[in-house]
């Protein structure tokens, strides 16, 4: 179908279009008008972007109000991660959930922010935060351990609500 649509060609320009000058003046007045419009620039270090809930920033582990992580160290996230960025080592506890990650490490040099870990997690324990300021100056610092990953649930409520509404 699309092939049969005749192409609209602007070959028959009017006289005023042909002598070019009025068209230039039109263009110039357009840009002049734009000069007095407010600018859209966000001046980054001073003004920071507040991402919406759908934003996929740095993946973090959810920490419940009692200070314990939700993760049960099932290893699914590590298995699904296309960039092989996650390393989980399980340990046993006396708590109700019985398992917890002894070691949980995300290599931020590898992570591609795909969000698959978040999607696969059965416990809603790993979610994408709004943090986009990820800075490190050497490779060792790029391995984010539990100390950096654990984030209080209050900070992640936005994303969790979003997931509950749209995931699955």
């Amino acid at each position, binding site marked *: 179908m699309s092939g049969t649509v005749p192409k609209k060609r602007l070959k028959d320009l009017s006289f005023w279009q042909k002598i070019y*000058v009025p068209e*230039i003046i039109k*263009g*110039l007045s*357009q*840009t*002049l008008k*734009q*000069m*007095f*419009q*407010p*600018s*859209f*620039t966000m*001046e980054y270090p001073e003004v920071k972007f507040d991402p919406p809930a759908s934003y996929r920033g740095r993946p973090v582990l959810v920490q419940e109000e009692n200070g314990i992580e939700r993760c049960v160290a099932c290893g699914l996230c590590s298995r699904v991660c296309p960039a092989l960025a996650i390393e989980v080592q399980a340990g046993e506890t006396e708590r109700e959930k019985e398992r917890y990650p002894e070691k949980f490490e995300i290599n931020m040099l590898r992570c591609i922010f795909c969000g698959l870990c978040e999607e696969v997690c059965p416990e809603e324990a790993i979610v994408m935060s709004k943090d986009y300021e990820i800075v490190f100056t050497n490779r060792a610092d790029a391995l984010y351990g539990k100390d950096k990953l654990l984030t209080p649930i209050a900070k992640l409520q936005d994303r969790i609500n979003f997931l509950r509404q749209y995931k699955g």
Partner: protein
Amino acid sequence: MNDFLFYIIVALVKIVIIANMILITVSYLVYFERKISAWTQNRVGPNRVGYLGLLQPFADVLKLLLKEDIVPKVANKFIHSMAPFIALFVAFTTYAVIPFGPSITLWGKEIPLMMADVNIGILYVLALTSIGVYAITFAGWSSGSKYSLLGGIRSSAQMISYEISMGFSIAGVLIFSQSLRPMEIVIAQHGWMWNAVLQPVGFLTFVVAAFAETNRLPFDLPEAEPELVGGYHTEYSSMKFAAFFLAEYANMIIGSAMIVTLYLGGWQFPYVETFGFSPAVTIGLQVGAFFVKMGALLFFFIWVRWSIPRFRYDQLMNIGWKVMFPLSLLNLIWAAILAMIMK
């Protein structure tokens, strides 16, 4: 002997003032280019270095100075390093004949407010701007890169095509001034007798040719980024690149100064004599008028750059030969008729 010394000192003072003025104007022209481009695109533009980013041009130059100077292996080293300085030389020497104010009298001697009041001033400018083409062509050819070469060739073809309409438009001006001396051309445009008013077609063709001569958009084919990487200066870095950069902006200033001198009455401030100011104030106003006109034209140059897309190469040639050339001829006839009637 004393006279001689006096004139040498005056000339030196004028050179120092004008050269510094150009350099400062160029740096702020770059700044304003970036600011105006930002405004047209609803951005903010440079605002980090110094108050409102006013030190940005100096930071840029410093950065360029510290960069490594790379010369391609296949380049012709001598010509490769000579080209940017031809460009600079041409850009800076052309100012010598542009009057930015009337003659003033100091200690009983008459001093014209221009570097050199030569009686073939306009020819001098035309000759020098044609040498400017060599800078670009040499740069393109000696780099040993096909993009540079194409840029250089385009530039020479473009300059040749547009110099003709430029020359004919200037001829229209000369009919009225009866002189090649820039000062007299300006004086001939007293009151509202500006050449832009008398011969609008010539004004248009000259402005278009000036855009083409300075390689500014929409005629910046020698450096068309999407096709030629950077055109003739693809293989330049560090200070040599800066020299080209400087020359481009200096050329813009010459372009607008020439337009002002030839068509917009130079330093003439219409009817300023009738206001009854003291002579010093009058001269000040006239010099001010020159710079205001020049500034407005510079703004226009930048404004056009951020509004109009680049021409295709064949369109450029078509316009040059089939539109600009006949138009400038027509203007010449019109100017001749007008001059006869007004006599």
